[in-house]
């Protein structure tokens, strides 16, 4: 597998504040990669650097071998972006929004109709976007990102502010896109979402990546496996499995009580995140 996104010692400073600090990573074609971090950790800045919206202070990043900032004309046709803010033209209809961007990309009208169909927006396509629900607007943004048949799509907090049904729909859509071979770069707060979607995740804190691996490996490496024992009297006991001596002593304390259930309990990605990244920084 070859890398489609590469970042080498990427740094970005804003007025003496380092927003992104020495990021080095690569993402393979077809991979779903999650960048997880607190608010202000540098996730959106990283996306802006990777997509060439802002120049790096130092280091470099590339998409498909093209420098993101200096070769924007080559990078733009390869990428799609679903930003955190729903930046659509509210006074225009969904159809007009897509048609406008289709003209900018030099894409045919048939692609617009195809995407409206695919994202279940056909029925409301002539309504003003102002009247759309959050979920519909998010689907419209995804349709816009897909107009140019991109190789990579950047999703910045794709399910933020959505109701559970819409959020599930969007997650399913991301999975479907990944199945078609599109590389997905995702930033999120939602650890469960990252766990279920991403092949690999990176935790970012104060602009630096503190760990990068598959969710499973992170849980194995950094999470303590535990056994949860439920007794007949509804009492629950959680015992770490890593410490055999402690496990045996705890089992003895149960004595003659009837055991109702024993479950192994894995650490969640959220546990690992909190363990590694700590609590949210105060501004």
């Amino acid at each position, binding site marked *: 597998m070859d890398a489609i996104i590469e970042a080498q010692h990427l740094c970005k400073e804003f007025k003496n504040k380092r927003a992104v600090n020495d990021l080095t990573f690569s993402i393979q074609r077809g991979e779903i990669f999650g960048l997880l971090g607190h608010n202000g950790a540098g996730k959106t800045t990283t996306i802006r650097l990777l997509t060439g919206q802002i120049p790096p202070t130092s280091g470099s990043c590339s998409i498909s071998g093209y420098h993101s900032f200096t070769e924007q004309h080559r990078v733009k*046709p390869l990428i799609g972006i679903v930003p955190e*803010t729903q*930046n*659509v033209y509210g006074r225009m209809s969904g159809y007009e929004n897509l048609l406008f961007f289709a003209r*900018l990309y030099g894409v045919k009208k048939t692609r617009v109709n195809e995407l409206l169909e695919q994202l279940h927006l056909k029925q409301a396509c002539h309504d003003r976007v102002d009247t759309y629900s959050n979920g519909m607007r998010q689907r419209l943004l995804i349709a816009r990102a897909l107009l140019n048949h991109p190789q990579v799509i950047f999703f910045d907090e794709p399910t933020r502010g959505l109701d559970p049904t819409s959020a599930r729909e969007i997650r399913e859509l991301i999975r479907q896109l990944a199945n078609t071979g599109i590389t997905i770069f995702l930033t999120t707060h939602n650890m469960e979402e990252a766990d279920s979607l991403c092949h690999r995740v990176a935790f970012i804190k104060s602009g630096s990546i503190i760990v990068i691996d598959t969710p499973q490996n992170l849980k194995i490496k950094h999470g303590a496996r535990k056994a949860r024992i439920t007794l007949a009297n509804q009492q629950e006991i959680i015992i770490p499995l890593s410490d055999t001596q402690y496990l045996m002593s705890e089992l003895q304390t149960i004595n003659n009580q009837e055991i109702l259930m024993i479950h192994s309990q894995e650490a969640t990605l959220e546990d690992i995140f909190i363990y590694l990244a700590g609590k949210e920084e105060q501004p």
Partner: protein
Amino acid sequence: MNGQRIAAIVQKDLIDAIRTPRLLLIIITPLIVALFINIVFGNKLTINIGIYAPDSTQIAAILEQVDLVRVILFEDKNLLQSAIRNKSITTGIILPQEFDTLLLSQNTPHVEILLADNSQESKLGLSLFQQAIQQLVPKSLPVELTITTLDSEQSPNNDLRGTLSIDQYAIVLWLVMGIVGNSVMLVPSLIVEERERQTLDALLLSPATFAEIIAAKAAVGVCYSLIGSAVILAMQRVNITQTLLIIMLVLLGSFTLSLIGVMIGVLSNNIQTLNSYGNVFVFILMFPSLAGMIGNNPILSYTRFLPTYSLTQGISQILTKNFHNTITNSIIIAIQTLLIFSLVIFVLHRQRLR
């Protein structure tokens, strides 16, 4: 620069501007004012001609037949002079005794003409008097004229109104108002709205370049200036040659002013900031065209460097058929366009690299 992408953005913005109440108001205000003035006052000019004649004359009757003219007979020369001084009369005619008899007997009577100022109305009154005489005696002017302009102190260069009739002055005012509004308020609003809605990011992530986006925004200002100007000129029934020449001048002037609009838009972070900057710019840029209202004020000479000064002068000269000076003003506007274009490119380049 890709023309197709620029056209797509222009088309989107032309429609989007009409759908936004604030922007729609900027576009239609000069048209509404022009239409209102047209409905209330009509587009007909009234020329008040005062006549002092010791005995009866057919000249008064002939002049009264002219649609635009109102004739007022005076029994006292001094009263006529004071009426001209306070400009309730634009042209005064002082006839000698037995004027008609002298005229018909082919003597050359002496007539004293008093013009209120250098305005077109005053000159038109004189011209109508000459035509009336030739209606009575069809030979090359059989009278001896002494012409005195009572308020001739105004310099025609600085006093815009002095060279124009009220109708023509109104046309200049509405045209400049429309161009300045569309260029200095509409164009930056389009940029600031894109930034506030964060749709500018989406545009910049598309194949459209920053230069194409900016060019498209300026083009929207030019388009609305041209449309608005054409409507005003049609409403005021300006002849086709003058209309075409003015439209060409508007094209050049609105392009220059739209570049200023682009710069304001790029430097304004939000609509509030834009409104503050924009209003100051509108006031300054409108100043040369307000000259007719404020008279011969020395401050006007400081406005010569403004693009609206040459634009205002150019439009006035086309309306008064002084085409030679129009070319000079067009060249000045073209040079200003190049200077402003260079400045805008410099500012935008710095902004982009931030």
